[in-house]
């Protein structure tokens, strides 16, 4: 068979692209090698599956170079050249899609060639196009920066013919500084937000000295940059993650509900996650009302189709289970079931099994149908997504307890502890403690139930009460409460 890399790439071309690629191959600007053209013509017959005995290298060679002795090296060169052209074609069609980038490239070339009249015409057109962009994301700022940079270069070479420096105002430099700084801030703060967010769950060491200086400047001296939506968004996301203040949450929630048209899906998706994380945190701080808040946020998130970080990606599987859990927390059982049915097909095929079974198991657990909950949890064939390994174990333990399967609980606890110790380095300290607390209290609860001795239950109840950073704390308290009563 000839190279899978080439065939794999060609098989991902749609019919229109594949036809257009034919013209690309036949264009002397890109290719003058007749054998490469012949190879394309030969392969065309097998598009899109490229599964045929006639794709055997020797058969392909014979068809291209009839009568000549097989030369593997030569054929490989022809295949490589066609592969290179396929890459160039992909790069070109991506380049062609972005009118503004194409325009900026043209502008740079016109500027370099000192074609002043056309340069000025395009400069104004591109400036209008950029100003019409509603999403002020980092690329918007960078394009503005590049455009101003071209103006700067233009003014630099035209200064040879200027009588004086009337046109050499400060505007250009100020603009460059403005757009470049906005680009940097929106990009670097977003990255900082991402890392801080992940740090809540995983341990990641990183040096943030410079960005913290920038944060300090934005908070204490700046009155301009932090008013730009994208910068404001990431600045307050960082503050909320770091300081956990209600006022920051309110600012961000206002941005969330009022900026659907001004922020990208990816920004809204991340913002929603940051808001949810804050609600989870407040829940662990014994603050009430956050279950309802989380559920309301998820409803907005579904309305706005914010269930994936980017359009081509499947429904976020962690979010899926969180939506189910938050609906169950406010006793919206039917809603949770409807949601699961409605959206399960949008999950990635490899994770559907674990997410759907886990969700149903949770649903039935909430309805006190523990047998069914066990059936669903046992129905999970494999857990590919590491983040699911923890909640599945938590739920399994709770089901075992409810069904009185205390021996199974003991094995599960043991295995869970091993898993936790092996992954200690990857979990944030807070999260590790939270799970450990759960295991500690759960083990004691099981022992009390096994021995049927209630003398320690009051103490256990009190300890759980005083340990807000405990996973499934409400469930644990309900179990100690049942024993006490």
């Amino acid at each position, binding site marked *: 068979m000839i190279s899978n890399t080439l065939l794999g790439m060609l098989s*991902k071309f749609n019919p229109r692209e594949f036809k257009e690629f034919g013209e690309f191959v*036949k264009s002397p600007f890109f290719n003058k090698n007749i054998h490469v053209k012949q190879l394309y013509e030969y392969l065309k017959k097998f598009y899109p599956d490229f599964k045929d005995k006639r794709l055997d290298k020797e058969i392909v060679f014979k068809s291209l170079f009839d009568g000549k002795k097989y030369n593997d090296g030569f054929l490989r060169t022809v295949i490589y050249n066609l592969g290179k052209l396929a890459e160039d074609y992909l790069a070109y069609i*991506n380049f062609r899609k972005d009118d503004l980038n194409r325009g900026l490239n043209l502008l740079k*070339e016109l500027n370099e060639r000192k074609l002043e009249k*056309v340069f000025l015409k395009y400069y104004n057109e591109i400036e209008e196009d950029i100003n019409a962009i509603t999403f002020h994301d980092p690329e918007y700022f960078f394009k503005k920066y590049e455009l101003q940079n071209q103006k700067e270069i233009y003014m630099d070479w035209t200064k040879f013919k200027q009588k004086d420096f009337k046109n050499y105002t400060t505007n250009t430099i100020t603009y460059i500084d403005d757009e470049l700084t906005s680009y940097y801030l929106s990009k670097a703060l977003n*990255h900082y937000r991402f890392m801080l967010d992940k740090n809540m769950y995983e341990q990641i060491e990183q040096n*943030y000295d410079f960005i913290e200086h920038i944060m300090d*400047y934005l908070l204490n001296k700046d009155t301009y940059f932090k008013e730009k939506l994208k910068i404001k968004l990431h600045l307050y996301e960082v503050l909320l993650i770091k300081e956990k203040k209600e006022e920051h949450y309110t600012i961000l929630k206002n941005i969330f509900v009022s900026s659907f048209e001004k922020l990208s899906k990816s920004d809204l998706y991340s913002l929603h996650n940051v808001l949810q994380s804050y609600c989870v945190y407040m829940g662990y701080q014994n603050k009430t009302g956050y279950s309802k808040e989380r559920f309301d946020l998820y409803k907005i998130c579904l309305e706005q189709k914010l269930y994936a970080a980017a359009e081509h990606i499947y429904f976020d599987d962690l979010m899926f289970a969180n939506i189910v859990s938050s609906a169950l927390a406010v006793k919206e059982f039917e809603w949770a079931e409807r949601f699961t049915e409605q959206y399960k097909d949008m999950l990635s095929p490899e994770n559907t099994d674990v997410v759907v079974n886990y969700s149903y198991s949770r649903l039935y657990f909430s309805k006190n149908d523990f047998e069914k909950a066990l059936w669903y949890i046992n129905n999970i064939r494999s857990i590919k997504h590491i983040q699911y390994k923890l909640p599945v174990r938590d739920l399994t333990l709770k089901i075992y307890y409810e069904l009185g399967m205390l021996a199974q609980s003991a094995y599960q606890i043991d295995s869970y502890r091993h898993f936790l110790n092996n992954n200690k380095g990857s979990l944030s300290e807070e999260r590790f403690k939270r799970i450990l607390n759960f295991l500690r209290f759960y083990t004691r609860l099981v022992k009390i139930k096994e021995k049927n001795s209630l003398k320690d239950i009051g103490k256990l109840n009190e300890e759980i009460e005083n340990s807000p950073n405990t996973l499934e704390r409400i469930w644990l308290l309900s179990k100690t409460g049942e024993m006490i009563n």
Partner: protein
Amino acid sequence: MNKSSLIEALKTFSPREMKEFSEFVSSPFFNKNVNVIKLFELIKKNYPEFEPLKIGKEKIFAKLFPGKPFKDSTLRLLMYYLYELVEKFLAHSRFNSDKFRHKEILLEELFSRKLFKDYEKIIDAANKELDELKVKDNSYYRNRYLFAEHKLSYLAEIYMGKYEKYLTRDNIQLFSDNITNFYLFSVLKYYAITLNTMYLYNVKVDTAVFENILLNFNIEHFQNAPLIVIYYRVIMLFVKPEDEENYHKLKEMIIKHEDELGESIGDFYINMENYCVRCLRMGKLKYLEESFNIYELELKKNTYQIHGYMPNSFFSSMVVTASKLKKFEWLRNFIMDYKDEIHESSREAYYYYGLAFLENEEGNYEKALESLARSKPEEVYLKMDLRILQSRIYYGLVWTLPLQSLLDTFKKTVQNNKFMTDMRKSQYLKFIKYTNQLNNVRYKEDKAAAEELYIDLEKDEYFAYKLWIVDEVKKLTE
């Protein structure tokens, strides 16, 4: 046709580009219109002169459509299509010449098609090419963080949820260090430009962001990014001009890292030149020889050109510095050898200014005046320099009354100019004031007044041509 955008653009093509464009036009991927190909083939024959008579519209039409009556709209449409191809070609050439941008865009396409094997191959190749780059300028840092960002997105996709697999210190630091380096490099560069502009022209810029960055800047953090430290030192030339050690360290770094500096090297030399000039204005005369050394270094390394020309300021500074150091023969050779590198729009003005300056220094006042008359500048600062030179020639020729009226007009011009910085104005006004006094003292042959003028000059700060005036006053006191 000669004045059309199409011909204007084709005139800028190199022979190689013409050949490539010919293939571009014949490529079915871009063009399937046979008449457009024919039109280009006809026009191409007249490259590079494109003589108007040979590419007249009716002539071209007749060759394109033999026997058919001339129809302007048909030809105009074909020209429009061909011009569209010119634009596509230019945009494509720019895109293709940036191999990193090409790879970056290909990565986006491969990612969206989930062609991960090819994706890995391309990203590894890009990082390897970046590793091999000598010049580490802002495009290097930008490409570094863009590829780091791509890699993070890619790893996030293939290790969905398994953060421990890809959120490693190296992957994250690669992004954050390089985006910070890119930003700092660009911002420090613009800050240096801003400070230069503020020094030369009467403009005000809000530099709060820049200043904040400087406050928190620690050289030690950027030992692996010499260009950033170099820009920082350039800024310090303005912020702490008294720190001469900073200048010498900067010069040392520029010479040490010259292979890594790319196109920025020209900027650095200009900044060193300017620092020397500012020191001279403060009366630090040792910087005269130093600035000459810098100019010579630039000539030797061929780093002085901007957009293919010798900057006017470089030429005139060379003239003034070499004259002050009495390197007359060297200067005459310089003027002759380099005059053609000055932009054609101001070539004559600077060339004759240079000659006039040299003749004046050598005491050939008549010849100096002759050259001066042929210099017709449009730039404001060259006009001022000409007035100064004219004043000195008149003084040399002992034209007392004409010098008086010249200085009067000069004074009014300076006072009425809105774009000159106050510092510059003050320099010119001092020259006018003292030259006037010098002229009067010599006319009156008043030795006591000459001595008094000498004392005044001693007390006053440095200004352009102060040394010349002091020398002339000294002669009157002897």
